């Protein structure tokens, strides 16, 4: 390689061409497929011991991971997230751009384009979809739903009614393990909050039993993560320091607590609550009646039906949510998910649990497959109900 060729850009052109060839090659496709196959297999087995959430976290949403063989040999592997990004590039270059245009290759092009749509949909969904659940007893109403696994800390005045809340998102405190701490300053509040010692699953224990940072004779004792993510009860140690005077108060914030931490500062009463993340719906849902039908002579459910009233700008509308027939409104979809109490006797008041999803790519899969859809009746790739979605309620605060 001479200096002249470098100046002329031959080296760059050749390097780019080689990179293009490599990224568009069958060899890369095969390696990607095999690695994805391996990760899917390992992630599937991992679920048995560690649950779906952990498996997703370790294998399917990661850029890289370390696989331990026989518990002793560490093998670094690319994560599924990284592999899918490279696959999208490989597919675009090799399966769409480099393929000769013509009717004979039309099928190949459409297939690859369809898979690309799925991958893009998966990416957008992963980044921007919101999913949680809403639990309602019969005759109860709500316009809020909450995450199943994402935490937040809400700080606001304890008025006993609606009040403005400051929210600390999970990403600002879930990495505060051990002595690592972070302080949060609120413009309108007379105190700062400092957090440290986060644990994704913990229990408050008497200080003598577990040691560590004691608060009122209790410490936050970390526990093994539960197999089902929903069973984890996160905890974090919180200290508030009044802006004027510098008085400090400490507490253990624990997700399993019945009540938030209530504290006096600046002559007012405030609540600090570690809870599952919440979102507001642009309409209110009232559960009128929940019905659980069983197949006769069995305990097997035949049908779960929730009769609800959807109230939007003062206009009430009846709707029915059942398995395979969700309620779609303003970009949100409510699915029949669960019910309870499981030990309810005839005549007991029941509650219904709805999975609530706002996913801008909900219809991507149908467009990728381009098959008639039993709701829309036709292939309509642009049917996604994204209009009118309000912004998610989240007032992030300055991190000091």
């Amino acid at each position: 390689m001479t200096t002249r060729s470098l100046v002329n850009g031959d080296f760059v052109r050749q390097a780019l061409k080689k990179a293009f060839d490599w990224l568009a090659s069958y060899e890369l496709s095969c390696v990607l497929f095999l690695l994805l196959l391996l990760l899917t297999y390992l992630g599937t087995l991992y679920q048995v011991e560690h649950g779906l959430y952990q498996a997703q976290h370790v294998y399917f949403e990661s850029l890289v991971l370390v696989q331990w063989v026989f518990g002793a040999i560490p093998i670094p592997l690319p994560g599924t997230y990284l592999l899918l990004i490279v696959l999208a590039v490989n597919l675009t270059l090799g399966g769409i751009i480099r393929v000769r245009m013509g009717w004979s290759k039309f099928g190949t092009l459409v297939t690859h384009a369809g898979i690309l749509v799925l991958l893009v949909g998966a990416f957008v969904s992963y980044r921007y979809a919101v999913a949680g659940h809403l639990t309602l007893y019969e005759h109860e109403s709500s316009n809020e739903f909450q995450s199943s696994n994402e935490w937040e800390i809400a700080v606001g005045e304890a008025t006993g009614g609606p009040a403005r809340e400051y929210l600390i998102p999970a990403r600002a405190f879930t990495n505060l393990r051990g002595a690592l701490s972070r302080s949060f300053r609120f413009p309108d509040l007379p105190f700062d909050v400092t957090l440290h010692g986060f644990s994704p699953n913990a229990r408050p224990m008497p200080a003598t039993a577990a040691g560590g940072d004691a608060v009122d004779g209790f410490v936050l004792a970390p526990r093994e993560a539960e197999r089902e993510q929903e069973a984890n009860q996160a905890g974090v140690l919180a200290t508030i320091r009044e802006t004027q005077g510098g008085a400090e108060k400490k507490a253990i914030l624990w997700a399993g607590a019945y009540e938030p931490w209530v504290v006096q500062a600046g002559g007012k009463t405030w609540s600090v609550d570690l809870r599952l993340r919440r979102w507001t719906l642009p309409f209110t849902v009232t559960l009128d009646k929940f019905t659980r039908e069983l197949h006769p002579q069995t305990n097997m459910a035949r049908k779960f039906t929730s009769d609800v009233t959807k109230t939007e700008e003062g206009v009430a509308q009846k709707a029915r949510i059942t398995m395979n027939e969700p309620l779609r409104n303003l970009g949100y979809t409510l699915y029949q998910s669960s019910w309870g109490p499981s030990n309810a006797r005839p005549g007991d008041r029941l509650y219904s649990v709805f999975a609530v999803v706002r996913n801008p790519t909900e219809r991507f899969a149908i467009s990728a497959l381009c098959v008639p859809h039993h709701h829309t009746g036709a292939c309509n790739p642009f049917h996604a109900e994204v209009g009118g979605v309000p912004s998610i309620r989240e007032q992030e605060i300055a991190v000091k």
Partner: protein
Amino acid sequence: MTRIVAASPTRKPCARPSATAADQIPAWRWLPAPRNHSLTTISWIGVLLLCSVATAAEQTPAADGSSADWSPQTVHMFAMLAVQEGGRVKPLDTYAGFTLLKLNGRRSCTNLAGKRLTPIQWLMDSLFYPEMARQYKTFLVDNADVLAAIGVSFEERRARYSYDGLAPARDRLMDLAHSYMGKEGKERTLLENQIANLAQNMLEFERLTHFLDFARRTYPVGENAALADLFPGQPECRLSALLAKGPDLSKKLAALHNQENATPEQKTSAQALSKLFREIDKTSDDASALAVFPPATKDEIEWRTPADLISCALQGGPSCPDAAPLIAGLEDLVQARDDRMHFATLAEALSEKLAGLAAARGEYGKIGLEVAYYRLDLFYYSLTLSVLSFILIAVSWMAPGRRIVSFAAIGSISLAAALLSAGIAMRCVIRGRPPVTTLYETILFVTAVAVVVSLFMEWVNRQRVALALASVLGMAGLFLANKYEAVEGLDTMPSMVAVLDTNFWLATHVTTITIGYAAGLLAGALSHVYVFGQLLGWRRGDAALYRGLTRMVYGVFCFALFFSVVGTVLGGIWANESWGRFWGWDPKENGALMIVLWQLTVLHARTGGLIRDYGVHLGAIFGGVVVAFSWFGVNLLGVGLHSYGFTSGVHATLTAFYLVEAVVLFAGCAAWWRARGNEPGTLEPAAAPKVNRRAKSSQRSRS
């Protein structure tokens, strides 16, 4: 148009059900012993009745108590009775078949005279001659340790034991089972599960043998002063007589209990009446095994057992005015058990009445078809024909010139495929569902698709390889289905869980993905022929044969990929509709994805020239392993949302399959290594990638 004439228990004509209800009973004229429902075939009724009378007159229980010997007509009448069990209305014949399969490991049993009994005959013996049925060797106990644990001596492997033989160990068995059932399913050992299963089977058998206990006894009413006005001059009476006066009895009991300052006589009467109610309760507890009585009103969905009727009648509610006559019908039957002619007449009357009630609710229409389905046993004949076909193909290989043998083989396997398809179609009609809704049905459907596609390939290729494969796959698939059914011992047409209750997605996603499974396995099976052929030097010089095999595998692989991809995406769309997410990394979803990824790997590697014929074939064999993992393997993990597909009985079979395939792959790799450099490239001209001009130069530079 078929209509029925309903008859009262006393054989007096009564108003027949409405035409609409009656029309729902189809005329399955081709059944071995048709019910005499039809007015249009009224003349046959007389003939049949005469036959039945003649047969019944000849057939009486053996004097030594070794055999019940029911007449075929009576047996058929009971087979056609409808019973609600496991969420659906089914023939009593079906219930008997699966109960006996669960207890005995097969659908037959031998009575004391050494005669082979059908399931419905066994059930009738258990109901009407329990003292005889308890001596039948009904319980299959495979494991000597089970018997050792309960203190019974082991006879031989696969031996059956009678209830009376196990009865001395009953208490020990129940104690052990009770302690094991307190454990989590995963924590129980195989032995503990087997002991618990044996205990459950014994309890189920007891429920059947005690089912009609209420009809075998009478209740004392003569000594009770409080009942003197209701049953004057009767020392005792049947339960139906008590039920007929159920409201009066309840009122009397309430009055006696509420009476202040009761006299000693009144207290004695109250105690005697309470004792009578307790006795009725005790016997009626046993009468809950079979829900054979349709509900009184259209709105109710739960069929009633005799226990329900007894309870309802004694409470004096308005919803069971027919309780006393229905219970009386069963009592009459029990008392007439040794008089075959009278028994047949009473049974006919009762079955007519119950069929009419079920038909009026629109729940009797498919009973005849289901009885026919199990009687015809199409899958058994399909299996037999598959075996025959394979034998004929083997003969044709030994005597190549005999075209008649080849034609006979093609005819056999084609008929086997037709019978298999007919059986699947019958199941669809009976259930009103698409062909695949359970794991058992996936086996049937995969077998059918594999056999039909093989026959199509044979039609194209005419090398007799696909034909032989069709026979082998037919045999293997139907044998597996048979084994799965026996291991599970449960109704293979169960009710659907709520999320599966959608024919649209069952017909699209499930059917499509199952076709993908079938094609993936078929490609793997075809590749076995290639690998073993190369290893053993079979028709070594026949290049056309091996070229044809490779083309077939490649074609089937593409077919499998298409259905796997479409099926997987459809599954995602269904998940989005039901659970709110397209993809959730659920094990079953992952299994489908693994199939797609492996098939993509092989096809891209072949298209890119990274592998040649051997690579494709070994890839197809490994693809079969991936399909097996996705199909059954992930169900053994016991996690995920597809909990309705869990199964535990296939672990050993699946492990054996993995091991055998590992050996085949190893042998194939050895053959590949041996043939390196001389490996054929069958697909090269047809499947070489075409690239555009820009890509061509880059390819050249790469090479």
